[in-house]
């Protein structure tokens, strides 16, 4: 396991603030699962679809967001404990468990198999969302009276989280559906890149995301509530480009990794 200098807080924002937020927007989750689907082996694809009434995995990409009641057992934050050097909390452990359980999916009940799949199809995507995996000791958690507002390119104040989840992705490619997006990002990816990206474990991927994305919080530090708009960080087109590039890479990686996990579990 890779050592990190920081403790990691990987979380679905949801429970931290005690209300229901979302991860990536629907279009991103659909894109990630679509890229994954493009990389499934025929055997894995057939086995998976047999578990979900012949539907495409894309259909269930946002099941967890839509069915919050049924999926609340996975909606927990988790972080990396600096004393024990072990990840605790359930976002990480639950997803690890899900991956492990799906490895022997035939032993699962039909319902559990489905639900574990829905969980994987969504949560692995959110683990790659720069706004969702970050370092704890930089005190980047959301607390009362502080916020992460920024000024978006239209000169309106918005939450930084919304920027990452939605605005950034839509801005440059407003007309794209998930197939356009998937096709564009994953047109003719070199095999070498696929192998390099999909090496490692969930934990490595989580660390990598946190490491790659830590700078987005340095750029826009946390503010006290009521900070005037002029003093907030402002987005310009250059930054939109730079960050959407980062987001797009994360999307591609999430898709490729999801395919790897699914192929390993269902490809037999």
């Amino acid at each position, binding site marked *: 396991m890779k050592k990190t200098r920081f403790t990691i807080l990987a979380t679905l924002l949801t429970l931290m*603030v005690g*209300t*229901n*937020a*979302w991860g990536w*927007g*629907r*279009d991103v989750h*659909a894109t990630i699962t679509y890229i994954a689907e493009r990389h499934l082996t025929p055997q894995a694809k057939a086995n998976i679809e047999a578990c979900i009434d*012949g*539907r*495409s995995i*894309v*259909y269930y990409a*946002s099941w967890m*967001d*839509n*069915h*919050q*009641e049924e999926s609340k057992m996975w909606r927990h934050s988790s972080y990396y404990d600096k004393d024990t050097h072990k990840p605790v909390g359930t976002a990480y452990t639950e997803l690890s468990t899900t991956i492990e359980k799906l490895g022997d999916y035939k032993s699962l009940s039909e319902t559990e198999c489905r639900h574990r799949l829905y969980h994987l199809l969504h949560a692995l995507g959110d683990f790659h969302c720069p706004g969702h995996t970050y370092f704890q000791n930089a005190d980047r958690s*959301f607390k*009362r009276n502080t*916020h992460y*507002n920024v000024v978006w390119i239209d000169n309106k104040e*918005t*939450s930084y*989280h*919304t920027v990452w*989840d*939605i605005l950034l992705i839509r801005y440059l490619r407003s007309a794209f*559906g*998930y*197939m*356009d997006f998937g096709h564009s990002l994953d047109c003719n990816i070199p095999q070498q890149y696929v192998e390099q990206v999909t090496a490692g474990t969930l934990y490595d991927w989580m660390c990598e995301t946190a490491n790659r994305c830590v700078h987005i919080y340095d750029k826009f530090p946390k503010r006290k509530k009521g900070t005037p708009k002029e003093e907030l960080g402002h987005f310009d087109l250059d930054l939109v480009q730079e960050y959407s590039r980062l987001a797009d890479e994360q999307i591609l990686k999430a898709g490729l990794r999801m395919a790897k996990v699914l192929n390993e579990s269902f490809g037999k």
Partner: protein
Amino acid sequence: MKKHIFTIFALLAFAPSVSAWNGALHTAIASIADANLTPEARTKIEAALGDHSIAYYAHWMDDVQHKSEYQHVRDWHNVALSPKGKILSAKKADKSASDVVRRADALDGLARAVAALQNRNNLSAQELADNIRYVVYIVGDLHCPSHYVFTDLLEARKMKYQIEKEKKPRSYMRFWEGEAVTATFAWKNNEFVHQLNRLSPERVAALTDGSVMDWVVENAKIYRPIYSYLEPDQHFKRKEYRAWLNKSYEMATDQIGVAGYRLAALLNGLFDESMPKKSIK
């Protein structure tokens, strides 16, 4: 923070419905049908449509009905049914019947369009294209739950619901014309094909079996329960609304696919000699 969370929620849940509703779903239905046309039917149809697919003209009937020369299509959207699900003829409806019942003439419109296409040698190029586009549109509408007018549930058609923090209540019937699907799946037409055009040949054969009226009667059974999904003037908290959407999105979305298969069966029967003809009755 809450406000922002709310914003995110709002964006994800509702942004798709702001863009075109209904038209996009008609396009989706026609795209699925297009994927199921036989080559012969497709060739003939696209020649008649000026080298365009049926999807290209999927919502055309809606776009032209404001013109005086197309005013006859304005009533071709709904079907009227008795409480027990028997199809009622709008033409024969009593003068005292409600306007919405007397104007529920979609089946008659479809029958006329299909009859015209069966004798298409008599049609001008314009009439041929128009009648194809009528069929494409009306079969779509026949798979939209809110287009089924049950005579005992006329009041329920006026139902509205209100979502927390929204100023105006929303129309329940309008919900079924778009948001029932798009609040959950904001797909483009090729994505609807990718998601829904995957049923087994046996399942497709079962769905497309029978006449158009058989389809309508079958649909009526599936659609009638929607009136019990909602209390009059129901108020939703945000979270409740999403949970409530979950009751219906699967059925609503699947109907897009069913409509596509059936439209293809109807058009194949009309334009490909080797395919079984579909009758209205």
